[in-house]
């Protein structure tokens, strides 16, 4: 009985975590898509990592990819795989932000549109988002494994 309750709780927590993660991606995408692509291109350029030719295509496609990921997470289809993609994407974002902060770039994070200066607060926020994504990913894989039928 106790095991059933724990399983039920885990399932509910996973749903809540997945929906929060989905909302984060949808809101981030919306903030970027409502502004002209050049604004986000400037945010990407500020990180001084990408070649000039990559700024326009990435500024035009990344927000749509975030939206698609958000919608996929809401739907719950292939949950563990989309949670894994979210984890990898957030790991990449966090690594880039951390590197920029360490080298002393005074820039906007660009995560949720302009006016969001990169600093300890934005790093803590993005680390929390990454932690949530990792928890949802691990939880989803564990749950899936427990549901696999045992073949004797």
């Amino acid at each position: 009985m106790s095991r059933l309750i724990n399983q039920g709780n885990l399932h509910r927590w996973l749903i809540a975590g997945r929906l929060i993660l989905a909302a984060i991606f949808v809101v981030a995408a919306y903030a970027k898509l409502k502004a002209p692509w050049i604004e986000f291109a400037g945010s990407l350029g500020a990180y001084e990592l990408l070649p000039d030719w990559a700024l326009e295509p990435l500024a035009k496609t990344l927000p749509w990819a975030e939206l698609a990921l958000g919608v996929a997470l809401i739907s719950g289809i292939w949950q563990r795989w989309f949670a894994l993609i979210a984890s990898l994407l957030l790991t990449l974002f966090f690594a880039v932000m951390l590197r920029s902060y360490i080298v002393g770039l005074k820039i906007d994070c660009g995560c949720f549109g302009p006016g969001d200066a990169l600093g300890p607060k934005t790093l803590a926020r993005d680390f929390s988002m990454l932690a949530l994504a990792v928890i949802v990913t691990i939880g989803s894989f564990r749950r899936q494994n427990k549901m696999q039928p045992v073949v004797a």
Partner: protein
Amino acid sequence: MMRTLLLLLPALVLSAQTAPVHKAAAVSPAPSTNFKVSGSPSATVELDAYTDYECPHCARFFAEFMPQFTADYIKTGKVKFVHRDFPITQIHPHAQLAARYANAAGELGFYDIVVNQIFKMQDAWAIAPYGKNTGDIDGAVAQVLPPGAMQKVRELVKTDPRLDESVKTDMAMANNVDHINSTPTIVVISNGKREPISTIMNMPYSVFKQYLDQKLAGK
């Protein structure tokens, strides 16, 4: 219910993207003082630049972005350009006075040369750590104006209330129409749509040129 929401989400985002950032028709733009306007008045694309004379990124904007932009778009008459004042006086105590000097020089036909000089000499008068915090804008401007014109500028700076009115007009535009909160911010206006861009100094000029050429082509 969930499926309906899922179907609606991309539509909502699409509508947000296709909706103008700020409709010019909603609030009619305040007229800018003529000396702040350059380029072709009949150009289909207008670029407004909000700057603060004491902001180091604005000095970079005038040193690095403006010469190329002027050659490519203002002198060729492709774009109408409006320079607007947005002094952030809470952190830049000399910015308002610098704007008064520039606008006074503008009244006498020396706007561009004085704007460039104030930005160029920023490290001599602006607040630390960008400058020596002398506030000696007068000394910087005097280097580029003939003595007679400089004297008139000084009189205007001391007595002319219209100089602050011009700044107030630009600030009202910034706060009520374009919703600016940092400088330099440019606003690209085409087809009645105003698109503020606050990351202009973070991108190579070539990327901005691509964007502006798309606007000029009506895309």
